[in-house]
């Protein structure tokens, strides 16, 4: 669909770069000039409106805290969008607390990004006195609002937020999960207590290390020992509990996971220490034990850090409206999606999503299925024909009759596929190389222990127990666990600083094993059907018809592209149509003067962007259209780099118009498939996996949801990471797509780093093992070996991964 010829200069001139006039509200360049209040310029009417609201309420400090703090208001919010919140049933589900005069509600606001956002959201009471309090959690982007529900409805509150540019994201499905997602306090308590006990035990063990050569400390020895014992109780019985439960769960499933040998070592260390202390034969190894528990907990906390404002588990429900307008005998009522039944008649407005498979009753449907299929052009559907759930109505109002319940619709039935029932997190963990390694490690350890026992049984049976137990203590595979957790923790940090957010650490290993990448087309490699971005005045449907009438008679490539963008429309009666070569078009429809062409022709100051821009002037309203290139930024540079390491395929729901272009991009060997339904994509991935491939799926929409779920690693490419993304393993910030090859390289090297540090720790283990097998292990040596080996592992893993990240040109700091 590349209609735009690079060197066509008939209509549009490349606009010269002028001094940037930035929107006072959102900071976007003002393509259209003239939307001003005093000396302040705005990019669109929406931004101007927000400024006016804030100005009349004395809230202009908003602009002083940060320059251009606002969010672009170019897409107006429909005023009936939140009508469903008047339905008390639905509203109740959102309330956190309601009773007496006040109601408390919490919203997730994706747009929060700076000090000004926070300031404004915490001064909502200045905008409406019936909002008594509002407080923002900046980390989770959640605002908690207290309001008088008798004076102001929930709908009004949400609409107020939307008008000032902070539209909340409302989903009944998510509201329950958000709370569970909060950070794990129990883990932090455990960490704190383990740290406290470890420090104190270490301190009180010092006399023990030196007790060989001085007698003064001796009288205190038993005091120190019993204090240590006391301090170790919370470490063993509280802080270490998660290792016990994990090992036990593994054993129940006949799995020897990494926690099993660690628990064994902890048990033996603890019981031997208790025995030594109670019998007065020694000081035990409580310092080493609590140290190990502490460092392992640190590793886990580092590794399991979560991105609290990102959701990885959204399904189709998050995309669908919460409620729809149902036409009943008593008028129109708002009904939540779960209550929607077959035969219900539903009214849909422009831009609303069809909630379930239905038949068009009234109105002309122009349905955009890009969401569901990836097919980019809207489909025209006449009354009496079927529309499918997930499609978006574009244009006029539509009345439809539901024929299938929401959960049984064509799109939503994809979620009944068995791919959605498996637990990927668990599978990843069970198949992890760390667990495999630890299994062999355990076998080797047991045979060594048996050999030692046999040896001492023949020579000096009294040394069997001490040497075997010392050996099991020293050879605890905590080094392996530490190596893995610290490497993963640091990699997660580097990856997220460079725009790749993983659901959890187990994805890193999967990412390193990938050998085949499957791309989605629309929205991932290409930018969708709209080859234009529009700015300035938003055209109404009627004005779009006018514009269509005017440009459809022109042969210019830009006109043709605009026709394709507008879609097939009604042609109206036109008067005085005139094309001036090199300048533009002029025509009159119903006495409205319409001009299409360059900035000078239309009579505005030229654009600030270097992009090819087309101006439309209807009477005195100006709209600018600028072209979006075919591929996403950086895609042509990134794909060849990826091709060096991976085989690739492309799955598209679209037709194969762009096949030659894409084949050239991906290479001849790559498999390209078009007109793929969501279920086809899923099955294609399954086929590849059956052939032994480890597949990564890179997609963006709901139509990829099945494939993302089935693939070994499903990555969603998102322009805004806080926006809606289908369920996936990782989210990649589209703005940082150029770093993707380096990020993959880093993930591939994770395993080598783990193995390298593991080898180092095994060296320490051998020294320790040798000492304990010969029966010369003392608390002093154990006390030195443990922290030294732990520290070297921490240094090697974080150091190596950071160095590698730097070498690959990635940024190590949060930007």
């Amino acid at each position: 669909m590349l209609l735009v010829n690079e060197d066509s200069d008939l209509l549009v001139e490349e606009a010269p770069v002028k001094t940037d006039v930035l929107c006072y509200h959102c900071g976007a360049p003002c393509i259209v000039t003239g939307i001003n209040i005093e000396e302040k310029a705005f990019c669109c009417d929406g931004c101007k409106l927000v400024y006016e609201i804030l100005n009349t309420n004395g809230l202009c400090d908003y602009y002083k805290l940060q320059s251009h703090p606002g969010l672009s208001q170019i897409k107006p919010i429909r005023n009936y969008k939140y009508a469903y919140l008047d339905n008390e049933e639905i509203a109740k589900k959102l309330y956190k607390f309601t009773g007496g005069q006040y109601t408390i509600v919490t919203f997730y606001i994706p747009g929060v990004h700076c000090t000004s956002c926070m300031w404004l959201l915490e001064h909502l009471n200045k905008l409406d006195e019936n909002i008594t309090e509002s407080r923002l959690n900046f980390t989770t982007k959640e605002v908690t609002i207290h309001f008088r529900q008798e004076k102001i409805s929930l709908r009004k509150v949400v609409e107020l937020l939307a008008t000032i540019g902070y539209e909340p994201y409302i989903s009944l499905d998510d509201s329950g999960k958000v709370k569970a997602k909060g950070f794990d306090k129990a883990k932090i308590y455990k960490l704190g207590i383990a740290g406290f006990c470890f420090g104190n035990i270490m301190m009180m063990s010092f006399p023990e290390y030196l007790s060989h050569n001085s007698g003064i400390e001796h009288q205190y020895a038993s005091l120190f020992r019993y204090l240590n014992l006391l301090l170790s109780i919370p470490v063993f019985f509280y802080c270490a509990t998660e290792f016990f439960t994990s090992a036990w769960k593994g054993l129940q499933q006949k799995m020897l996971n990494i926690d099993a040998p660690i628990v064994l070592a902890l048990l033996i260390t603890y019981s031997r220490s208790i025995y030594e202390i109670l019998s007065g034969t020694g000081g035990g190894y409580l310092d080493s034990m609590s140290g190990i528990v502490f460092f392992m907990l640190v590793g886990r906390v580092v590794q399991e850090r979560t991105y609290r404002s990102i959701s990885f588990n959204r399904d189709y429900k998050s995309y669908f409206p919460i409620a729809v307008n149902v036409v009943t005998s008593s008028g129109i009522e708002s009904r939540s999606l779960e209550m929607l039944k077959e035969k219900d008649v539903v009214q849909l407005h422009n831009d609303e999503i069809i909630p379930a498979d239905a038949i068009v009753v009234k109105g002309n449907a122009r349905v955009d299925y890009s969401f569901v299929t990836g097919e980019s052009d809207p489909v025209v559907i006449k009354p009496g024909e079927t529309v499918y759930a997930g499609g978006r109505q574009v244009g006029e109002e539509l009345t439809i009759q539901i024929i299938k319940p929401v959960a049984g619709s064509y799109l939503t039935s994809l979620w009944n596929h068995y791919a959605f029932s498996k637990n990927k997190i668990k599978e990843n963990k069970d198949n992890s190389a760390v667990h495999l390694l630890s299994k062999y490690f355990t076998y080797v350890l047991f045979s060594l222990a048996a050999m030692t026992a046999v040896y001492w049984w023949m020579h000096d049976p009294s040394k069997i127990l001490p040497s075997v137990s010392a050996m099991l203590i020293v050879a605890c595979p905590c080094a392996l666990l530490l190596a893995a957790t610290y490497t993963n923790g640091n990699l997660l940090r580097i990856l997220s600083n460079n725009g790749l957010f993983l659901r959890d650490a187990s994805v890193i290993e999967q990412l390193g094993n990938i050998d085949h990448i499957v791309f989605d087309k629309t929205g991932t490699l290409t930018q969708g059907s709209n080859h234009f971005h529009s700015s300035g005045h938003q055209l109404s449907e009627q004005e779009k018809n006018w514009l269509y009438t005017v440009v459809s008679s022109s042969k210019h490539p830009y006109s043709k592209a605009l026709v394709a963008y507008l879609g097939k429309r009604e042609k109206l009666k036109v008067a005085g149509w005139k094309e001036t070569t090199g300048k533009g078009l002029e025509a009159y429809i119903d006495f409205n003067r319409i001009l299409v062409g360059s900035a000078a022709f239309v009579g505005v100051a030229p654009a600030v962007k270097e992009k090819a821009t087309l101006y439309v002037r209807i009477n005195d309203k100006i709209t600018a259209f600028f072209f979006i290139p075919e591929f996403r930024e950086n895609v042509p540079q990134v794909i060849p780099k990826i091709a060096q390491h991976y085989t690739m395929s492309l799955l598209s729901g679209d037709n194969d118009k762009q096949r030659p272009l894409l084949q050239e991009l991906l290479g001849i060997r790559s498999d390209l498939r078009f007109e793929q339904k969501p279920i086809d994509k899923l099955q294609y991935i399954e086929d590849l996996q059956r052939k032994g491939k480890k597949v990564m799926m890179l997609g963006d929409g709901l139509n990829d949801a099945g494939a993302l779920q089935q693939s070994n690693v499903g990555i969603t490419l998102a322009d805004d990471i806080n926006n809606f993304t289908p369920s996936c393993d990782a989210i990649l910030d589209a703005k940082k797509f150029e770093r993707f090859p380096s990020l993959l390289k880093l993930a591939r090297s994770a395993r080598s780093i783990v193995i390298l540090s593991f080898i180092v720790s095994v060296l320490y283990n051998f020294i320790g093992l040798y000492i304990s097998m010969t029966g010369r292990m003392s608390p002093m040596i154990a006390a030195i070996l443990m922290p030294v080996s732990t520290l070297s592992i921490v240094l090697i893993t974080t150091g190596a991964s950071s160095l590698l990240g730097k070498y690959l040109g990635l940024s190590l700091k949060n930007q």
Partner: protein
Amino acid sequence: MSALYLLILASIAVAATFLGAFIWSVKSDQFEDQKGASMRMLYDNEIIQDPIIEITKE
């Protein structure tokens, strides 16, 4: 030398107080929103135009 017993107990008591403070701070949600508090302190009072802009622009 019996002073040492007292000192040891005292030192553990002091350390335990800090542990208690840490647990209290986690419990009272002080780690829930680490960025927010640092921003909120900037606008407690009415804003004096110039200096604030300089601070936030850094």
